[in-house]
């Protein structure tokens, strides 16, 4: 059978779409396995947000709106983690709230707690290595058949529980807690307290609060009165962040920046009510689908920075790695960039093939 371009493109245009799905899956998966690295040059709008946070003073506070649901987790969680990591490394306090989506309640908590935990592990690193050699800890690891990494996780969790006076954390690993108390190791945690990232002191997560705009406006007057409790139902007034004599947070006047991580129209509400009414700086991290809508707000200065989808997260992770080369590691943003590049190349090839095929088959059909 003689090869003609017409036949070739007719075959291509009639191909079962499931082959294309399969090809796309292969193109996305392969770079994940072979660790292809892609160099990322952070976008200007990401640098703007990074520089803004970099220029804040330790002890300042940022408020993060977690306005997305689990279906946007792949894009927005990595950027949330990168921003929170940066803030904690700079000694900036973080507050988190979910206003638009009830299903964001757990996502925001995971973002903030995971980064607090990561930094506490870094802070206690030397002490944890020292404890690894303790006979009781060696025996505990052997009995429970757990790795060094797992026991470090448990010790830091207990240390945080001691300082946060969180009994439910202390009850998680009672045998290990007993060992730490009996050996006196628990008393040796005290010097780390000042540097550790602790709930109520360095961060507060409010969870989901129904009311949306009314809550947004109420926070401009009095946060404790409007929000009353954190995600666990504990009164905010008990926390140092809200009752300190020197650096307590009352309303937006005490918030240096609002960052909204959004998969819907919430950025508009933060700009309208918090930037326009209360004059506070607002930045946004949005899904790529909606990013184009928000560039005019950058140009007008209503947003001081913008993270655009997974690429925005990769940019922010890159900046974190530049500033904290010893501790910052690539997250899921940078991890997905090679797959993203190859998938885009494949789509470009398909667009070219599809258009060429259209003209070739049309010409052949007319002939």
């Amino acid at each position, binding site marked *: 059978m003689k090869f003609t371009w017409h036949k070739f493109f007719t075959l291509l245009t009639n191909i079962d779409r*499931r082959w294309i*799905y399969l090809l*796309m*899956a292969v193109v*996305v*998966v392969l770079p*994940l*396995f072979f*660790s292809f690295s892609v160099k990322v040059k952070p976008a200007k709008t990401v640098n703007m947000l990074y520089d803004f946070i970099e220029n804040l003073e330790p002890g300042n506070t940022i408020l993060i709106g977690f306005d997305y649901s689990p*279906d*946007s*987790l*792949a*894009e927005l969680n990595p950027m949330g983690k990168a921003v929170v990591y940066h803030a904690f490394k700079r000694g900036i306090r973080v507050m988190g709230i979910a206003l638009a989506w*009830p*299903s964001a*309640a757990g996502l925001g908590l995971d973002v903030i707690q995971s980064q607090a935990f990561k930094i506490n592990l870094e802070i206690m690193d030397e002490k944890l290595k020292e404890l690894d050699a303790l006979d009781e800890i060696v025996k505990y690891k052997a009995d429970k058949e757990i790795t060094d990494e797992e026991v470090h996780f448990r010790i830091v969790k207990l240390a945080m529980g001691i300082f946060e006076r969180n009994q439910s954390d202390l009850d998680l690993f009672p045998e290990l807690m007993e060992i730490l108390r009996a050996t006196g190791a628990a008393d040796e945690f005290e010097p780390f307290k000042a540097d550790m990232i602790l709930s109520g002191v360095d961060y507060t997560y409010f*969870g*989901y*609060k*129904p*009311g949306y*705009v009314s809550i947004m*406006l109420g926070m401009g007057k009095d946060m404790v009165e409007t929000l*009353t*409790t954190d995600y666990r*139902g504990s009164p905010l007034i008990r926390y140092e962040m809200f009752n300190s004599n020197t650096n307590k947070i009352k309303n937006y006047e005490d918030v240096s920046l609002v960052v909204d991580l959004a998969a819907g129209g919430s950025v*508009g509400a933060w*700009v*309208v*009510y918090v*930037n*326009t*009414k209360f004059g506070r700086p607002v930045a946004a991290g949005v*899904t*790529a*689908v909606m*990013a*184009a809508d928000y560039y*005019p707000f950058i*140009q*007008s*200065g*209503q947003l001081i920075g913008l993270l*655009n*989808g*997974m*690429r925005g997260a990769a940019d922010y992770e890159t900046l974190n790695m530049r500033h904290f080369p010893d501790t910052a590691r690539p997250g*899921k943003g940078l*991890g*997905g960039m090679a*797959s*993203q590049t190859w*998938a*885009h190349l494949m*789509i470009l090839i398909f667009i070219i093939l599809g258009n060429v095929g259209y003209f070739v088959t049309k010409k052949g059909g007319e002939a």
Partner: protein
Amino acid sequence: MINIIQTTIGAILTLSIFSFLYKDNPLYRIAEHLLIGISVGYIIGQQYHMGFMNYVITPIFKEGQLIYLIPSFIGLMYLGFFSQKTSWLIRFPIAISLGIGAGYGIPYTFQASIFIQLRETLTVFSEPGITGFGIFSGVLFLLGVFTAIVYFFFSWKHRGVVGIVAKVGIYFLMIGFGASFGLTVMGRISLLIGRFLFLFKDWLHIIS
């Protein structure tokens, strides 16, 4: 152990949803119904604990703040919807919500979305130390805004000069839609990457 069970359930449901790409099947439908059911249940739970308990039960019955009875009573009027005799009651909470929403929203929305945007569009050349590229961007920006507005101006027929300007406006709009579509592709692929990272990293631990 609980973590392993959780991620395995997540992985099975992810694969069930992916199976729709081959063809519709019962596994996909089970996963879809579970997603909807669990989402609604979770939302109701959140609303009950964070809304009803925090802003109705606790302040009124535990703290004795009777002022909360007024908004609670107004909110209860929504339940009038379930009977034809009392359905007129829902007009009150709707009217109050709309009134407060519009009162707060209209001035600030106009300010943020129209006045400030318009001011920044008109002062595009006033940036201190503007470069040649900045001037070029500004001209392009103004041209785009002007021609796109003309395209949406329907009082005159799009003929002659107006037609040409509107046509230029269409090209600007097309470029905007193209950028949005490109970003949409990136967004959708990000979601796919997210699921694959979950399957191969969090579930199977076969990539670092």
